[in-house]
């Protein structure tokens, strides 16, 4: 019957039997969408295990990259389509494709394999739940509307349509919540209460909408605009997945009985880290640029706010705390500052300490960062990679007295505005845009907005004269990319001929 599942066995290991679903049965996949409520129980080969997981991982990593680049949903969908078709196709039930079962089984299994691979740490769990939700959303949006409705019905989400009569009765209250949801208003015609489908649902089903006062609540029922249905389904998806991952994490120790899986799972989770690194750690200097310790003050005009803040704090205090030193050293390494110059830079910057103290407490760390000392692995890999925005945004939020982190994320709005003004950003519209971006947690957007403002004329020229392609001007997601692009834009004249030549060569 089922050609994929060649090695299905009826005898279960007794140790697993006690944990297995008592309703053990071959999975049926009546819907294209899957909430992954039931773990797979049939057997697959080790090769399938690995290949399916890698295929899914490709898709997820690319989706994550799209979100780092702030692609719009439409851009993301367009970008992802060929990848999905290749690695994780899912046809509609109506297609009557021969492959339906195989596709859905692969989707089902690969999800659960990655669950095992990414359950181990909280950070991985959070990222996994996030990208899986993105994948689900993509598929939810492209699902045939009738099939989607049928799928949603199986979720048992318990909502009820609001009658026209009740809509009229509650029109003023509903009107005040209608703009909260779905899109950003966009200046288009305000949606009308009566045109909208409203769902009435126990408020406990949508605690996040209640918490943020995005829905009208009466007598224990929340009134949710119909187009929030998607967000309710997605919420349920994320929530259930997060809960399941917690359970998986606790059950992980029991899986080590199968030591064939452990290396594969470890390998998978390491690969998931990879797409974030983003910027080569080698730090080849930009040709013609003087990347030396004594020129850093001058170069700092090209730094993004995070590094400007570190640089200024260092100059002010003649000191930086641990994470600040780490973030800054890696950045300097990334712009091409050599180890020797870097040691000179830090030695002179820490002007209030003796050589002895410097050598004892700081020198080693700088060398380690460059891969000059430390274990084999560290030396072979050339030390650490410069931090990407994602890493700076999500790891080690700065505490009092610490200067690392991302100002767009970690500063109060007032302090951020003060700093931006001090760095020459005085345009009201830009400052307001930044405030808006940071409020909606789009820190990349804020940073890129500032970049575009500070390099407005150069970008225009670079585009007009074809010096840089659109791809070279894509959203910045790495502080070192910020530096490089800023430097190149501001030094177009010196570099003009060469750069132009390069671009033309690539044609």
């Amino acid at each position, binding site marked *: 019957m089922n050609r994929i599942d*060649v*090695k299905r066995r009826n005898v279960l*290991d007794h140790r*697993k039997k*006690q*944990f*297995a*679903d008592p309703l053990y049965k071959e999975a049926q996949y009546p819907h294209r969408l899957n*909430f992954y*409520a*039931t*773990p*797979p*129980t*049939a*057997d*697959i*080969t*080790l090769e*399938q295990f690995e290949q399916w997981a890698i295929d899914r991982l490709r898709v997820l990593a690319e989706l994550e990259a799209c979100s780092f680049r702030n692609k719009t949903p439409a851009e993301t969908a367009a970008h992802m389509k060929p990848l999905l078709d290749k690695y994780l196709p899912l046809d509609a039930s109506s297609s009557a494709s021969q492959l339906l079962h195989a596709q859905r089984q692969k989707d089902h*299994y690969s999800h*659960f*394999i990655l*669950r*095992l691979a990414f359950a181990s740490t909280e950070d991985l769990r959070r990222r996994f739940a996030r990208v899986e939700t993105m994948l689900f959303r993509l598929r939810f949006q492209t699902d045939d509307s009738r099939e989607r409705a049928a799928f949603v019905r*199986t*979720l*048992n989400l318990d909502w009820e349509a609001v009658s026209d009569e009740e809509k009229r009765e509650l029109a*003023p*209250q509903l*009107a*005040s*919540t209608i*703009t*909260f949801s779905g899109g950003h208003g966009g200046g288009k015609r305000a949606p009308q209460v009566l045109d909208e489908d409203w769902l009435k649902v126990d*408020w*406990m089903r949508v*605690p*996040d909408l*209640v*918490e*943020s*006062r995005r829905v*009208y*609540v*009466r*007598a*224990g029922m929340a009134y949710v605009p119909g187009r929030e249905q998607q967000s309710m389904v997605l919420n349920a998806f994320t929530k*259930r997945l997060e*809960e*399941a991952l*917690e*359970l*998986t994490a*606790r*059950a992980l120790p029991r899986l080590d009985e*199968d030591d*064939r*899986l452990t290396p594969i799972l470890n390998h998978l989770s390491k690969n998931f880290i990879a797409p974030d690194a983003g910027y080569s750690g080698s730090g080849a200097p930009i040709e013609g640029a003087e990347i030396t310790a004594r020129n850093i003050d001058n170069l700092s005009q090209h730094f993004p706010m995070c590094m400007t803040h570190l640089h200024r704090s260092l100059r002010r205090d003649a000191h930086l705390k641990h994470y600040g030193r780490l973030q800054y050293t890696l950045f300097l390494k990334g712009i091409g500052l050599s180890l020797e110059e870097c040691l000179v830079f830090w030695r002179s910057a820490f002007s209030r300490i003796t050589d002895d103290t410097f050598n004892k407490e700081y020198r080693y760390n700088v060398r380690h960062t460059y891969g000059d000392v430390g274990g084999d692995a560290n030396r072979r890999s050339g030390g650490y990679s410069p931090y990407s925005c994602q890493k700076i945004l999500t790891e080690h939020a700065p505490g009092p007295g610490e200067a690392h982190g991302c100002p767009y994320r970690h500063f109060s709005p*007032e302090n951020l505005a003060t700093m931006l003004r001090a760095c020459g950003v005085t345009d009201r519209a830009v400052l307001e845009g930044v405030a808006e971006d940071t409020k909606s947690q789009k820190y990349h957007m804020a940073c890129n907005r500032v970049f575009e403002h500070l390099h407005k004329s150069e970008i225009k020229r670079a585009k007009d004269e074809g010096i840089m392609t659109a791809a070279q001007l894509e959203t910045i997601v790495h502080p070192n990319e910020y530096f490089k692009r800023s430097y190149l834009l501001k030094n177009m004249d010196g570099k003009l001929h060469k750069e132009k030549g390069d671009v033309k060569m690539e044609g």
Partner: protein
Amino acid sequence: MVEAGEVRGLEVSKQTPEPPTAQTAKDEDMCVEIKQESKAEIKLEDLFAGIDSDDDEFSTSGNPLNSKEHRDDDAQNTSIELLRIYYQRFFPWRYMFQWLNHSPVPTKDFKHREFSLWLHNDAVMRYQSYTTSDLFRKDVLRLMPRRIEIGPVYTADPRDRKTFRTASAFQPMAKELCFDIDLTDYDDIRTCCDKANICHKCWRFTTMAIKVIDTALREDFGYNHILWVYSGRRGVHAWVCDKRARALKDNHRKAITAYFEVVTGKQGGKRVNIRRPLHPHLSRSIDILKDHFQRDVLETQDPWKTSEKADYLLQQIPDLKLREALRKKWESFPGRTSALKWADIDALAQTDASATLDPKDLLDAKQDIVIEHTYPRLDTAVSQKLNHLLKSPFVIHPGTGRVCVPIDRNNLDGFDPLNVPTLQGLIREIEAWTEADGAAAAMAAVEVSGSSGQDVKPLQDWEKTSLKPYIEYFRSFVTTLMKAEREAVLKRERDEDDEVPVKVESLDF
């Protein structure tokens, strides 16, 4: 070969979840010394889980009953003796039992409920529980706690909690949804008092808060059984006792708390940040609050009397020109009252109509100001956790000697926190009570009921004192609650009879 390459299904079983923090603390002794903060194995946060901010027992000043330095053995013995009389003769044991038990016969709701007793030697006994109201009373009389706290109902008897091998066998499962309002959180806007002090003027903030929260709990969330209790000094607690509220999980408690939380942010910065159009809960709250703002804030508190405070007000005016016009006017009238300053805003906005002023911005800013000065400020920690303990109603506040009495929400304006019964006062009242009073009361009862004097029950001691209206209010609250609870049970039984068995696809994974 292929055999070796097989991978069995990836099922992952549910395992026991981590125990909540309340049980992970190694409280090796039932009796945990408060003083032992340095003992590593005792989690401080656990010890203090139930301390709400209204109680100053540990502050060093003004507390003759409990402050260590001032403690005088005689005084303490006297106070323990008075407390004994209170627990013996005044504390409403029966109604307390019914309140927590929801039924006349002891159920798990009562038997598995955690009580925590704070003793005079500064020890706290957590995880106490009682199978009957009488055992509860006896234990309290034996130990004479100066404070009793109420925690959640657990899946098992809290006294047996150490006998379970898995944490899932002992979990908190229900507790009233609680709110805590404390006037110290209003210190930046009250001008009459600060810190632990209160007067009738600033008590108005509490009254406003109760109106807003009570209304929203009823209208928005559909809760009906909300008990407001004076915390004995400078705040109030709400106990939402509906069955549905008692069963709320932490994430839902957190959601409701955030729904109510509006005045946030640091002092000195902008403290109100709300979307427009206003959410229905906020526009309704402003309707409730605007008269209070005029009367109890502008006229009574006069919050922007000083030029420093007026500056803070000016910062929130959205238009530069209007701001400057107001500043000039107020500088030429030093000491201009807040009510007049408030009126100036509209007046100058009209006359000196600034071309750049958007009337909508001004209205929004004014609404924000009204909210900042009237909207409830909650101590959110109390509301968010199912296993948070809260001081029981009817205990004596050790600092003020006042009884923590319930507040009748239909007569909020009639509640006077400075005039509630006190421990000493009750003792005096009962000593002054004479048979003559009793006879007069009996006569009155006969007249009212029209029955013969013989089946008039002898008066209970609390009925002879100023505690009477508060216990009567509590009794009627409890009666209503029990009735609703009984009806719910009956309805469920009816529904079960009618029920057609349906196979519900399990969605938990």
